[in-house]
């Protein structure tokens, strides 16, 4: 197609609509081929390429399913209260308050304000990590030769900086992150064992308990010992559902969790949001 004129260039650009690639958002999300819910309830459907990132603001009561399609995705995740990003994921509180260093089904992802941002409602992977955070420019440059976002081996923190900037946030708004689909275990002496992936098809479903801003970087885990930068696509689907309510087994699963849900409900009620 001739692109020497504005008319030709316009036609050339417009002819690209409808192109399908493996890693891309599907808009509207309702066009996703096999929805995990009523098709009209999907609000986000995307496949994130290895070494890439995405971000979205999700309403309270949304379920967010992350799937490791080929076994080498690693979903590095940060959460903020939407429109009040000074309330954000606190990894230390998440593990300390719940007396558990490992992430899995039933775990609450706690903010630094004694409230719940999201809960883990399903997990078929069991290989996750709350201790090692994400990769950095310095480390990826040393390991892979480069860590800049446009390189073949982008660092998680560099991608988080971009996702944060698109939500009006700065590098100092990036606290320690969680990572899903690449596991780490702690030995008795405190040393870490990298357990890697559970294989293709593992998924984790989060339920948002407040309106949240979600930042996701899909990059290799920093403890991944392989010399090559191995990062495969991550599927992200989100749909309208309901937040955790009294009577749900999760609400009363632990005394610490019950108080976190109560604090969240008090806050939302006072704001006129629930």
């Amino acid at each position, binding site marked *: 197609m001739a692109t020497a004129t504005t008319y030709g260039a316009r036609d050339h650009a417009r002819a690209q609509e409808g192109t399908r690639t493996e890693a891309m958002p599907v808009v509207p999300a309702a066009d996703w081929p096999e929805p995990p819910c009523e098709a009209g309830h999907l609000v986000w459907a995307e496949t994130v390429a290895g070494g890439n990132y995405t971000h979205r603001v999700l309403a309270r009561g949304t379920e967010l399913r992350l799937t490791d399609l080929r076994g080498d995705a690693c979903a590095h995740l940060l959460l903020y209260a939407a429109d009040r990003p*000074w309330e954000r994921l*606190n*990894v*230390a*509180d998440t*593990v*300390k*308050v719940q*007396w*558990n*260093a*490992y992430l899995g089904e039933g775990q609450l992802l*706690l903010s*630094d*304000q*004694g*409230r719940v941002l999201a809960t883990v409602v399903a997990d078929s992977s069991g290989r996750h990590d709350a*201790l*090692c*955070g*994400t990769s*950095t*420019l*310095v*480390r990826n440059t040393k390991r892979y030769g480069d860590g800049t976002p446009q390189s073949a081996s982008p660092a998680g*923190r560099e991608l988080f900086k971009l996702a944060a900037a698109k939500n009006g946030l*700065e*590098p*100092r*708004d*990036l*606290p*320690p*992150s969680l990572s899903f689909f690449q596991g780490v275990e*702690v030995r*008795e*002496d*405190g*040393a*870490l064992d990298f357990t890697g992936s559970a294989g293709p098809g593992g998924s984790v479903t989060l339920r948002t308990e407040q309106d949240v801003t979600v930042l996701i970087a899909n990059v290799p885990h*920093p*403890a991944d010992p392989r010399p090559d930068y191995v990062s495969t696509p991550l599927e992200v689907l989100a749909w309208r559902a309901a937040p955790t309510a009294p009577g749900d087994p999760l609400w009363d699963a632990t005394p*610490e969790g019950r*108080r*976190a849900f109560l*604090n969240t409900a008090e806050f939302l009620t006072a704001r006129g949001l629930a």
Partner: protein
Amino acid sequence: MTSVVPAKALVPVKAVVPARAAWSSVVRAGETLTITDLHGNQAVDFLVYDAHDTSVRYSAPDTVHAQGGIFLTTGSVLMSNEHTPLMTVVADDVGRHDTVGGACSKESNTLRYGHHTWSQHACVDNFLAEGARYGLGKRDLVSNINWYMNVPVEKDGTLGIVDGISAPGLSLTLRAECDVLVLVSNCPQINNPCNGFEPTAVEMTIGAAG
């Protein structure tokens, strides 16, 4: 970029930080900071920033994965969020310290113990008050170090603060790898064993570059 380096060189200092109090100082590259647990079993919550750019600050996860383990002791390098060294533990009488449990806050205390703890003192308030003197705010608080605090992880992932392994007079020494700002909250916690349920004073000594 926020710099907090004072115009004049600092003279070596020795300061006793009372129970529950906050403390801070710039420590210049090569200088040492010795923290002494005067009465034993006192948790010392600790954050460290690059004094020339406070957006570069302590990263618990970078430190953990750089050293391949969760406990800090002699040889541990305190890494920044940009994976650069801020300080190194050059001496340690105790053997291990925590960097997973983070700081106590009024908010997290309501989850850990109940809402009756809301009016008690907490480390996050110390960090906010002391950090404000340098223009640091809530966005600048991240997962920290708890010197002298004992947080083991069981095989099934169960983690928690248990009785300390420190004793009166034990100390540790950090060497600054660049000019750093150190914020300390001498933990006021009275609900768990990190202070033996009774906070006590600690001592800070800044030594000249060796």
